[in-house]
């Protein structure tokens, strides 16, 4: 079983739609949950970061974590063409020791929002 599973898509939605991106994980040591966004021909950039179960909102974006089910989601409301990118989930372990700072990434979901 892979440590992280993410549906690679591609996902194509009309402008204004609600987008749901999901990842499952198997490693119980993961304590930090992130979403990165990667535009074409660029490196990934951190979009959202949380370390607890529940929801975290930032504008049109909501990150949801369910530690009991080992499942995280990113919701995008009122999606825009500028949201077209690859979205990667990422997981970090406990602070301290050599695992600190090292992230495990999902495969990435390619999202296209068309006008």
């Amino acid at each position, binding site marked *: 079983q892979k440590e992280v599973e*993410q549906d*690679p898509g591609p996902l194509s939605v009309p402008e204004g739609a609600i987008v749901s991106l999901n990842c499952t994980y198997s490693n119980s040591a993961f304590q*930090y949950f*992130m979403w990165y966004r990667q535009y074409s*021909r*660029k*490196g*990934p*950039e*951190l979009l959202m*970061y949380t370390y607890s179960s529940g929801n975290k909102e930032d504008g049109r974006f909501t990150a949801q974590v369910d530690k009991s089910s080992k499942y995280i989601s990113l919701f995008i409301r009122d999606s825009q063409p500028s949201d077209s990118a690859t979205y*990667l989930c990422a997981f*970090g372990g406990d602070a301290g020791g*050599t695992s*600190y*700072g*090292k*992230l495990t*990434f*999902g*495969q*990435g979901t390619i999202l296209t929002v068309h006008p």
Partner: protein
Amino acid sequence: DVKVTQSSRYLVKRTGEKVFLECVQDMDHENMFWYRQDPGLGLRLIYFSYDVKMKEKGDIPEGYSVSREKKERFSLILESASTNQTSMYLCASSLDLEQYFGPGTRLTVT
């Protein structure tokens, strides 16, 4: 703003050549990372470093080595390039958990 730069955006090399990919960060970050990114496989960690002259293997280190002689610079070396090393190579640096990425080097080995 954190800046991570990579020496080349595109590189074409022949099988068997020794290849150097350079990465420089300007934020005095302790941690630096090399990944390769392939369709359907996502980002896979090749090597990382927590300090000057220190290196640790990631998930796919075979066929690669690294060098970190100065804090700001982390080099990835392909000792003898092979066609299965054709990929996008991404460098990142971090102080804690947030990693800052360079723009990537698209390497083609023919």
